[in-house]
Protein backbone atom coordinates (compact mmCIF):
# COMPACT_ATOMS: atom_id res chain seq x y z
CA UNK A 1 0.00 0.00 0.00
CA UNK A 2 1.11 3.51 -0.77
CA UNK A 3 2.76 5.63 1.89
CA UNK A 4 1.55 9.01 0.72
CA UNK A 5 -2.08 9.43 1.67
CA UNK A 6 -4.55 11.04 -0.67
CA UNK A 7 -6.98 13.53 0.92
CA UNK A 8 -10.01 12.16 2.75
CA UNK A 9 -13.51 12.64 1.32
CA UNK A 10 -16.94 12.31 2.92
CA UNK A 11 -19.41 10.44 0.76
CA UNK A 12 -23.14 11.10 0.58
CA UNK A 13 -25.41 8.70 -1.28
CA UNK A 14 -29.01 9.20 -2.38
CA UNK A 15 -30.62 5.77 -2.25
CA UNK A 16 -33.52 6.64 -4.54
CA UNK A 17 -35.11 9.57 -6.27
CA UNK A 18 -36.90 11.87 -3.86
CA UNK A 19 -34.88 10.90 -0.79
CA UNK A 20 -32.07 12.95 0.76
CA UNK A 21 -28.40 12.22 0.32
CA UNK A 22 -27.21 10.41 3.43
CA UNK A 23 -23.70 10.15 4.79
CA UNK A 24 -22.35 6.75 3.79
CA UNK A 25 -18.75 6.91 4.95
CA UNK A 26 -15.42 8.29 3.88
CA UNK A 27 -12.59 7.30 1.55
CA UNK A 28 -9.32 8.51 0.08
CA UNK A 29 -8.98 9.96 -3.43
CA UNK A 30 -6.66 12.29 -5.32
CA UNK A 31 -9.36 14.57 -6.74
CA UNK A 32 -13.17 14.99 -6.84
CA UNK A 33 -13.56 12.87 -9.97
CA UNK A 34 -11.67 9.99 -8.43
CA UNK A 35 -13.63 10.40 -5.20
CA UNK A 36 -16.91 9.94 -7.10
CA UNK A 37 -15.57 6.89 -8.92
CA UNK A 38 -14.23 5.39 -5.71
CA UNK A 39 -17.54 6.07 -3.98
CA UNK A 40 -19.34 4.37 -6.84
CA UNK A 41 -17.13 1.32 -6.42
CA UNK A 42 -17.05 1.23 -2.62
CA UNK A 43 -20.57 2.31 -1.66
CA UNK A 44 -22.94 1.53 -4.55
CA UNK A 45 -21.89 -1.95 -5.64
CA UNK A 46 -24.99 -3.50 -4.05
CA UNK A 47 -27.43 -1.06 -5.67
CA UNK A 48 -27.40 1.34 -2.74
CA UNK A 49 -27.60 4.53 -4.73
CA UNK A 50 -28.70 6.66 -7.64
CA UNK A 51 -26.66 9.77 -6.89
CA UNK A 52 -23.38 10.60 -5.17
CA UNK A 53 -22.07 13.73 -3.47
CA UNK A 54 -18.47 14.01 -2.35
CA UNK A 55 -17.05 16.67 -0.02
CA UNK A 56 -13.44 16.88 0.99
CA UNK A 57 -13.41 16.17 4.72
CA UNK A 58 -11.38 19.26 5.56
CA UNK A 59 -14.30 21.41 4.44
CA UNK A 60 -16.59 19.95 7.08
CA UNK A 61 -16.76 21.99 10.28
CA UNK A 62 -18.04 20.15 13.32
CA UNK A 63 -19.35 21.16 16.71
CA UNK A 64 -17.05 20.29 19.55
CA UNK A 65 -17.89 17.43 21.94
CA UNK A 66 -16.87 19.58 24.94
CA UNK A 67 -19.67 21.98 24.13
CA UNK A 68 -22.31 19.25 24.02
CA UNK A 69 -23.72 20.14 27.42
CA UNK A 70 -24.36 23.77 26.59
CA UNK A 71 -25.52 23.09 23.07
CA UNK A 72 -27.95 20.19 23.47
CA UNK A 73 -28.93 19.67 27.08
CA UNK A 74 -30.99 22.87 27.39
CA UNK A 75 -33.53 21.23 25.06
CA UNK A 76 -34.05 18.30 27.42
CA UNK A 77 -36.81 19.83 29.58
CA UNK A 78 -38.63 21.71 26.85
CA UNK A 79 -41.16 19.13 25.82
CA UNK A 80 -43.52 21.88 24.71
CA UNK A 81 -41.37 22.30 21.60
CA UNK A 82 -42.64 18.98 20.33
CA UNK A 83 -45.91 19.23 18.46
CA UNK A 84 -47.49 16.50 20.56
CA UNK A 85 -50.26 18.54 22.12
CA UNK A 86 -52.46 18.75 19.07
CA UNK A 87 -55.39 16.46 18.35
CA UNK A 88 -55.08 15.17 14.83
CA UNK A 89 -58.05 14.19 12.69
CA UNK A 90 -58.27 10.42 12.11
CA UNK A 91 -57.90 10.83 8.34
CA UNK A 92 -54.30 11.99 8.79
CA UNK A 93 -52.39 8.77 8.79
CA UNK A 94 -48.84 9.84 7.96
CA UNK A 95 -48.04 12.33 10.70
Amino acid sequence: MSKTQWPLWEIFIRSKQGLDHKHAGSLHAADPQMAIENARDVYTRRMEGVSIWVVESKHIHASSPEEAASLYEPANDKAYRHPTFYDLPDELTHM
Partner: protein
Amino acid sequence: MDQLINYTLHLADNSLVLGHRNSEWTGYGPVLEQDIAISNIALDLIGQSRNFYQYAARLINQSTNQSVTEDTLAYLRDANQFKNCLLSEQPNGDWAKTILRLFFFSAYQYFLYRQLQNSTDGTLGAIAEKSLKEVTYHLRWSSEWVIRLGDGTEESHRRILAAIDALWMYTDEIFEAADYELAAANKGYGVDVSSLKDDWQKKVSNIFEQATLPFPPANKPGVRWFGKEGKHSEHLGYILAEMQFLQRAYPDSQW
Protein backbone atom coordinates in the same frame (compact mmCIF):
# COMPACT_ATOMS: atom_id res chain seq x y z
CA MET B 1 -22.91 -22.99 -36.53
CA ASP B 2 -19.23 -23.71 -35.82
CA GLN B 3 -18.35 -20.13 -36.67
CA LEU B 4 -21.03 -18.78 -34.35
CA ILE B 5 -19.70 -20.99 -31.54
CA ASN B 6 -16.12 -19.87 -32.20
CA TYR B 7 -17.17 -16.25 -32.32
CA THR B 8 -19.03 -16.56 -29.02
CA LEU B 9 -16.08 -18.35 -27.42
CA HIS B 10 -13.75 -15.63 -28.65
CA LEU B 11 -15.85 -12.96 -26.92
CA ALA B 12 -16.06 -15.09 -23.79
CA ASP B 13 -12.32 -15.81 -23.67
CA ASN B 14 -11.46 -12.12 -24.06
CA SER B 15 -13.53 -11.19 -21.03
CA LEU B 16 -12.48 -14.16 -18.91
CA VAL B 17 -8.74 -13.76 -19.43
CA LEU B 18 -8.77 -10.00 -18.91
CA GLY B 19 -11.07 -10.45 -15.92
CA HIS B 20 -8.72 -13.02 -14.43
CA ARG B 21 -5.73 -10.75 -14.93
CA ASN B 22 -7.49 -7.87 -13.20
CA SER B 23 -8.57 -10.18 -10.37
CA GLU B 24 -4.89 -10.87 -9.64
CA TRP B 25 -4.86 -7.38 -8.07
CA THR B 26 -7.43 -8.31 -5.44
CA GLY B 27 -5.73 -7.81 -2.10
CA TYR B 28 -2.73 -6.09 -3.71
CA GLY B 29 -4.23 -2.82 -5.00
CA PRO B 30 -2.13 0.33 -4.45
CA VAL B 31 -4.81 1.69 -2.12
CA LEU B 32 -7.95 0.08 -0.71
CA GLU B 33 -10.34 2.04 -2.94
CA GLN B 34 -8.51 1.07 -6.13
CA ASP B 35 -8.27 -2.53 -4.97
CA ILE B 36 -12.08 -2.59 -4.79
CA ALA B 37 -12.42 -0.76 -8.10
CA ILE B 38 -10.24 -3.14 -10.10
CA SER B 39 -11.87 -6.15 -8.40
CA ASN B 40 -15.33 -4.85 -9.35
CA ILE B 41 -14.16 -4.52 -12.94
CA ALA B 42 -12.74 -8.05 -12.84
CA LEU B 43 -16.13 -9.32 -11.66
CA ASP B 44 -17.94 -7.42 -14.43
CA LEU B 45 -15.68 -9.05 -17.02
CA ILE B 46 -16.00 -12.54 -15.59
CA GLY B 47 -19.78 -12.04 -15.50
CA GLN B 48 -19.74 -11.12 -19.19
CA SER B 49 -17.71 -14.19 -20.00
CA ARG B 50 -20.22 -16.39 -18.15
CA ASN B 51 -23.04 -15.06 -20.31
CA PHE B 52 -21.09 -15.83 -23.47
CA TYR B 53 -19.95 -19.28 -22.23
CA GLN B 54 -23.48 -20.26 -21.27
CA TYR B 55 -24.66 -19.35 -24.74
CA ALA B 56 -21.75 -21.19 -26.39
CA ALA B 57 -22.48 -24.28 -24.29
CA ARG B 58 -26.11 -24.20 -25.38
CA LEU B 59 -25.09 -23.93 -29.05
CA ILE B 60 -22.58 -26.77 -28.72
CA ASN B 61 -25.08 -29.04 -26.98
CA GLN B 62 -27.73 -28.35 -29.62
CA SER B 63 -25.47 -29.02 -32.57
CA THR B 64 -23.34 -31.92 -31.34
CA ASN B 65 -25.31 -33.86 -28.75
CA GLN B 66 -22.65 -33.25 -26.12
CA SER B 67 -23.41 -31.91 -22.70
CA VAL B 68 -20.89 -29.19 -21.97
CA THR B 69 -21.41 -26.37 -19.47
CA GLU B 70 -19.89 -22.94 -18.99
CA ASP B 71 -17.42 -24.59 -16.59
CA THR B 72 -16.29 -27.14 -19.18
CA LEU B 73 -15.51 -24.30 -21.56
CA ALA B 74 -13.70 -22.10 -19.06
CA TYR B 75 -11.85 -24.76 -17.09
CA LEU B 76 -11.25 -27.72 -19.34
CA ARG B 77 -9.99 -26.28 -22.61
CA ASP B 78 -6.27 -25.99 -23.28
CA ALA B 79 -4.36 -22.85 -24.27
CA ASN B 80 -4.49 -23.51 -28.02
CA GLN B 81 -8.28 -23.68 -27.84
CA PHE B 82 -8.55 -20.25 -26.26
CA LYS B 83 -9.40 -17.47 -28.71
CA ASN B 84 -8.65 -14.35 -26.68
CA CYS B 85 -6.54 -11.51 -28.06
CA LEU B 86 -2.91 -11.48 -26.95
CA LEU B 87 -3.37 -8.10 -25.28
CA SER B 88 -5.75 -9.54 -22.69
CA GLU B 89 -3.26 -12.12 -21.42
CA GLN B 90 -0.27 -9.79 -20.98
CA PRO B 91 1.05 -9.74 -17.40
CA ASN B 92 -0.14 -7.03 -15.01
CA GLY B 93 3.27 -5.42 -14.52
CA ASP B 94 2.84 -2.24 -12.51
CA TRP B 95 -0.37 -0.24 -12.05
CA ALA B 96 0.34 1.79 -15.21
CA LYS B 97 0.58 -1.32 -17.37
CA THR B 98 -2.60 -2.82 -15.90
CA ILE B 99 -4.45 0.45 -16.43
CA LEU B 100 -3.24 0.88 -19.99
CA ARG B 101 -4.15 -2.71 -20.92
CA LEU B 102 -7.64 -2.14 -19.52
CA PHE B 103 -7.93 1.20 -21.32
CA PHE B 104 -6.93 -0.24 -24.71
CA PHE B 105 -9.27 -3.17 -24.23
CA SER B 106 -12.22 -1.25 -22.83
CA ALA B 107 -12.09 1.20 -25.73
CA TYR B 108 -12.25 -1.77 -28.10
CA GLN B 109 -15.05 -3.49 -26.17
CA TYR B 110 -16.98 -0.23 -25.99
CA PHE B 111 -17.11 0.25 -29.77
CA LEU B 112 -17.59 -3.48 -30.32
CA TYR B 113 -20.57 -3.87 -27.97
CA ARG B 114 -22.14 -0.68 -29.27
CA GLN B 115 -22.45 -2.37 -32.66
CA LEU B 116 -23.01 -5.88 -31.38
CA GLN B 117 -26.21 -4.67 -29.69
CA ASN B 118 -27.71 -4.69 -33.20
CA SER B 119 -26.65 -8.28 -33.83
CA THR B 120 -29.09 -10.42 -35.82
CA ASP B 121 -28.52 -12.97 -33.05
CA GLY B 122 -30.82 -11.94 -30.20
CA THR B 123 -28.71 -13.49 -27.43
CA LEU B 124 -25.44 -11.89 -28.51
CA GLY B 125 -27.25 -8.57 -28.88
CA ALA B 126 -28.71 -8.82 -25.39
CA ILE B 127 -25.36 -9.70 -23.79
CA ALA B 128 -23.73 -6.79 -25.63
CA GLU B 129 -26.40 -4.38 -24.45
CA LYS B 130 -25.96 -5.43 -20.82
CA SER B 131 -22.16 -5.45 -21.03
CA LEU B 132 -21.98 -2.06 -22.71
CA LYS B 133 -23.08 -0.31 -19.51
CA GLU B 134 -20.28 -1.97 -17.59
CA VAL B 135 -17.67 -1.35 -20.25
CA THR B 136 -18.67 2.31 -20.53
CA TYR B 137 -17.64 2.67 -16.90
CA HIS B 138 -14.42 0.65 -17.38
CA LEU B 139 -13.50 2.98 -20.22
CA ARG B 140 -14.26 6.09 -18.19
CA TRP B 141 -12.36 4.80 -15.16
CA SER B 142 -9.28 3.68 -17.08
CA SER B 143 -9.27 6.87 -19.22
CA GLU B 144 -9.16 9.00 -16.08
CA TRP B 145 -6.26 6.95 -14.82
CA VAL B 146 -4.31 7.19 -18.07
CA ILE B 147 -4.69 10.98 -17.92
CA ARG B 148 -3.62 11.10 -14.26
CA LEU B 149 -0.58 8.94 -14.86
CA GLY B 150 0.48 10.68 -18.07
CA ASP B 151 -0.10 14.17 -16.74
CA GLY B 152 0.97 13.32 -13.17
CA THR B 153 4.46 13.12 -11.77
CA GLU B 154 7.69 12.47 -13.58
CA GLU B 155 7.64 8.90 -12.35
CA SER B 156 4.03 8.19 -13.33
CA HIS B 157 4.71 9.64 -16.78
CA ARG B 158 7.76 7.44 -17.18
CA ARG B 159 5.81 4.36 -16.11
CA ILE B 160 2.87 4.90 -18.46
CA LEU B 161 5.34 5.48 -21.32
CA ALA B 162 6.98 2.15 -20.49
CA ALA B 163 3.53 0.53 -20.48
CA ILE B 164 2.78 1.93 -23.95
CA ASP B 165 6.11 0.60 -25.12
CA ALA B 166 5.24 -2.86 -23.79
CA LEU B 167 1.63 -3.09 -24.99
CA TRP B 168 1.20 -1.06 -28.18
CA MET B 169 2.46 -3.93 -30.34
CA TYR B 170 -0.50 -6.09 -29.24
CA THR B 171 -3.16 -3.64 -30.39
CA ASP B 172 -3.00 -4.43 -34.14
CA GLU B 173 -4.29 -7.96 -33.61
CA ILE B 174 -7.58 -6.70 -32.18
CA PHE B 175 -8.60 -5.18 -35.50
CA GLU B 176 -7.43 -8.01 -37.73
CA ALA B 177 -10.35 -10.34 -38.22
CA ALA B 178 -10.07 -14.09 -37.66
CA ASP B 179 -12.09 -16.40 -39.94
CA TYR B 180 -14.96 -16.66 -37.51
CA GLU B 181 -15.07 -12.88 -37.12
CA LEU B 182 -15.30 -12.43 -40.89
CA ALA B 183 -18.07 -15.01 -41.05
CA ALA B 184 -19.82 -13.31 -38.14
CA ALA B 185 -19.66 -9.91 -39.80
CA ASN B 186 -20.88 -11.31 -43.13
CA LYS B 187 -23.84 -13.06 -41.57
CA GLY B 188 -24.75 -9.99 -39.55
CA TYR B 189 -24.57 -11.49 -36.06
CA GLY B 190 -21.04 -10.16 -35.47
CA VAL B 191 -19.05 -6.98 -35.97
CA ASP B 192 -16.43 -6.18 -38.60
CA VAL B 193 -13.53 -5.40 -36.24
CA SER B 194 -11.52 -3.54 -38.87
CA SER B 195 -14.32 -0.94 -38.96
CA LEU B 196 -13.76 -0.21 -35.24
CA LYS B 197 -10.14 0.85 -35.63
CA ASP B 198 -10.79 4.48 -36.57
CA ASP B 199 -13.05 5.12 -33.59
CA TRP B 200 -10.63 3.32 -31.31
CA GLN B 201 -7.66 5.38 -32.52
CA LYS B 202 -9.59 8.61 -32.11
CA LYS B 203 -10.51 7.71 -28.55
CA VAL B 204 -6.96 6.69 -27.65
CA SER B 205 -5.41 9.74 -29.27
CA ASN B 206 -7.90 12.03 -27.50
CA ILE B 207 -7.06 10.57 -24.09
CA PHE B 208 -3.32 10.49 -24.85
CA GLU B 209 -3.48 14.17 -25.77
CA GLN B 210 -5.03 15.03 -22.40
CA ALA B 211 -2.44 12.82 -20.77
CA THR B 212 0.43 14.61 -22.58
CA LEU B 213 1.41 11.31 -24.19
CA PRO B 214 2.62 10.95 -27.78
CA PHE B 215 0.20 9.56 -30.35
CA PRO B 216 0.74 7.42 -32.26
CA PRO B 217 3.45 5.89 -30.07
CA ALA B 218 6.79 5.03 -31.65
CA ASN B 219 5.99 2.21 -34.00
CA LYS B 220 7.28 -1.23 -33.19
CA PRO B 221 6.27 -4.04 -35.51
CA GLY B 222 3.11 -5.76 -34.27
CA VAL B 223 3.49 -9.29 -32.93
CA ARG B 224 3.19 -12.08 -35.46
CA TRP B 225 1.21 -14.67 -33.50
CA PHE B 226 -2.52 -14.59 -33.44
CA GLY B 227 -4.19 -15.30 -30.11
CA LYS B 228 -7.61 -15.32 -31.73
CA GLU B 229 -6.59 -18.50 -33.54
CA GLY B 230 -5.08 -20.13 -30.49
CA LYS B 231 -1.47 -19.02 -31.02
CA HIS B 232 -0.73 -17.50 -27.64
CA SER B 233 2.15 -16.00 -25.75
CA GLU B 234 3.66 -18.14 -22.99
CA HIS B 235 1.65 -16.20 -20.41
CA LEU B 236 -1.68 -17.85 -21.13
CA GLY B 237 -0.39 -21.24 -20.01
CA TYR B 238 0.44 -19.86 -16.57
CA ILE B 239 -2.96 -18.19 -16.29
CA LEU B 240 -4.73 -21.43 -17.13
CA ALA B 241 -2.53 -23.44 -14.76
CA GLU B 242 -3.70 -21.28 -11.90
CA MET B 243 -7.27 -20.74 -13.05
CA GLN B 244 -8.00 -24.35 -13.97
CA PHE B 245 -6.11 -26.13 -11.20
CA LEU B 246 -9.04 -26.71 -8.90
CA GLN B 247 -11.40 -27.99 -11.58
CA ARG B 248 -8.77 -30.34 -12.96
CA ALA B 249 -7.55 -31.63 -9.59
CA TYR B 250 -11.04 -31.98 -8.08
CA PRO B 251 -13.45 -32.30 -11.01
CA ASP B 252 -16.94 -30.91 -10.40
CA SER B 253 -16.19 -30.26 -6.75
CA GLN B 254 -18.70 -28.13 -4.89
CA TRP B 255 -18.44 -26.06 -1.75
